[in-house]
């Protein structure tokens, strides 16, 4: 059974009449997907994500939990209970106890749970009469005895208690995925480019005429427009393309994928510039294999002669890719420099690139 991090967000566990819970839940799911693309919303309030990949990337389970906690707080402003265990059933219980169950200890953890954890009062009451108080004691009943003494639902609960099933029937809201999909569909923009497909007004005609003049003067690739393609968020795939060019093919990666949380840099370099980041001893600061920096950045070297003191940095944050599968690692770093400018760097293949300026 897979080791899972479970998040219990009490404030998002019951629906508001204005639909805000569902919207906020989707927003949080999207944010968590940036940390781990396999994040799931099991039912309102309960999120899970597999821990193995992310913790290898971020440098440990604690690091992942810290980032998740910050993400929830940043995105929703709510508190979150975190827990780690094998399987959805135990992970949720662990979250409610705010416990990290050690690898291999999930069995012991599960067996110690009270029978009420299975969520069936009738079963718990009957078991108590038999002198059974924990999941462990219930699990130890022979399957045949459970079959004759309880109804058929109990057989399934028995399997959960024995650790043969990772999640309870009813633990997951099966309709939720459909509802989220519908909500996401409403949010996503259709392919559009510069109102070219919308109704044209006098203002549009005037603008197009001016655009033609610029093109005649400077060439076809001088006048650009933003191309907004469908994505997780409207801004997700905004790029600049020559005016009048066909829509950019899906899969053409924008230099600016827009996956860092806002605010975004006002300048995003179409052609990133190689830079160097060094610590106070002029030793290069690199991205380690576990997604951690090899040292504390002290100076950013923009060219051989331009050295700027690093006042502050945040990150690195991984780029959304199934990095542990593809073996491709990229991570962003936000840096504030001595004169108060802020820049965005990306690390790839052992090098740093300047990709954005918050100017």
């Amino acid at each position, binding site marked *: 059974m897979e080791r899972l991090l479970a998040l219990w967000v009490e404030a998002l566990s019951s629906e508001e009449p204005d639909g805000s819970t569902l919207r906020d839940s989707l927003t949080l799911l999207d944010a968590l997907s940036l940390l781990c693309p396999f994040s799931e919303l099991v039912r309102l309030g309960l999120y899970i994500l597999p821990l193995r990949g992310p913790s290898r990337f971020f440098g440990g389970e604690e690091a992942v939990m810290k980032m998740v906690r910050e993400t929830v707080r940043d995105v929703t402003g709510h508190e979150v209970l975190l827990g780690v265990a094998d399987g959805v059933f135990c992970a949720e219980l662990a979250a409610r106890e705010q416990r990290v169950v050690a690898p291999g200890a999930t069995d012991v953890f599960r067996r110690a749970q009270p029978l009420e954890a299975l969520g069936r009062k009738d079963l718990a009451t009957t078991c108590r009469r038999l002198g059974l108080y924990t999941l462990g004691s219930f699990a130890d009943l022979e399957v045949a005895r459970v079959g004759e003494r309880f109804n058929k639902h109990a057989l399934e609960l028995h399997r959960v208690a024995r650790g043969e099933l990772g999640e309870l029937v009813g633990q997951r809201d099966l309709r939720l995925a459909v509802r989220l999909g519908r909500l996401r569909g409403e949010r996503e923009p259709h392919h559009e480019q510069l109102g070219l497909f919308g109704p044209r007004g006098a203002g549009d005609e005037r603008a197009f005429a001016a655009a033609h003049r610029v093109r005649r003067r400077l060439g076809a690739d001088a006048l650009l427009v933003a191309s907004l393609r469908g994505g997780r968020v409207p801004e997700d795939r905004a790029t600049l393309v020559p005016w009048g060019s066909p829509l950019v093919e899906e899969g053409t990666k924008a230099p600016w994928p*827009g996956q860092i949380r806002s605010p975004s840099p006002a300048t995003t370099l179409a052609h990133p510039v190689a830079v160097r980041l060094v610590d106070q001893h002029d030793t290069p600061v690199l991205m380690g294999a576990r997604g951690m920096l090899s040292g504390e950045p002290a100076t950013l070297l923009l060219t051989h002669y331009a050295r700027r003191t690093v006042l502050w940095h945040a990150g690195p944050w991984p780029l959304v890719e199934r990095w542990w599968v593809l073996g491709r690692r990229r991570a962003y770093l936000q840096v504030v420099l001595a004169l108060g400018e802020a820049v965005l760097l990306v690390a790839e293949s052992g090098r740093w690139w300047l990709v954005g300026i918050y100017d």
Partner: protein
Amino acid sequence: MSGYSYEHMFVFSSARPTLPRDLAASLRPLTLAKSRMMPLGEPWKALVPGGGLRRGSTVVVEAAPGLGGLSLALSLLTASSANGHWAGVVGVDDPGVVAMAELGVDLRRVLFVPRPRGAWAESAADLLDGVDLLVVRPPSRAAHGVARKLMDRVRERGTVLIVLSESGAAWPLPAELSFVVTDSRWATSSRLEARYLSVRIAGRGEAGRAREHVVVLPNRRGQAAAT
């Protein structure tokens, strides 16, 4: 132009009579269509004399490189853009379209000429005919004659020209409105949270005495806001 002086008074008078709210709401689209003012979004509408950008005027945004001048210039587009007006951006090499979207600019109605090569003034003049607001970042100090010509054209077409002036290359002619970034500070947590910009805003004449304000640009959602 017969209605001009009346509207001008109406917009600038601080003692203008208050209309019942429902009546004001019903009048709004009409007055906007006729208005000589392009609307401004938060926080500028409360800070700029008249609450908007007058058509035909030139606005100068001054900042040291990297200290928020570009974000400020782009943030002046948001309300007009949301109202369906077209904007142009000339000479901004690598505009951050994501940042623009976060600010609230409707990217469907923005024309970009990132690298006008030697012809930034000509490209600007071309675009002036087709857009309602134009952001221009001249690559170097603009010649007096070039600036004069552009400003005349702007006045004639009723466009708003927003000149972004960085690295001390000041716009050679006086503008109707100026924004000078005097200080820029980042608030941080586990990431960049917000930037506090100190901005000196000055208009022309009595209404335009220079005032210094601190605004948040961008905030954690990438928008411009009051402090």
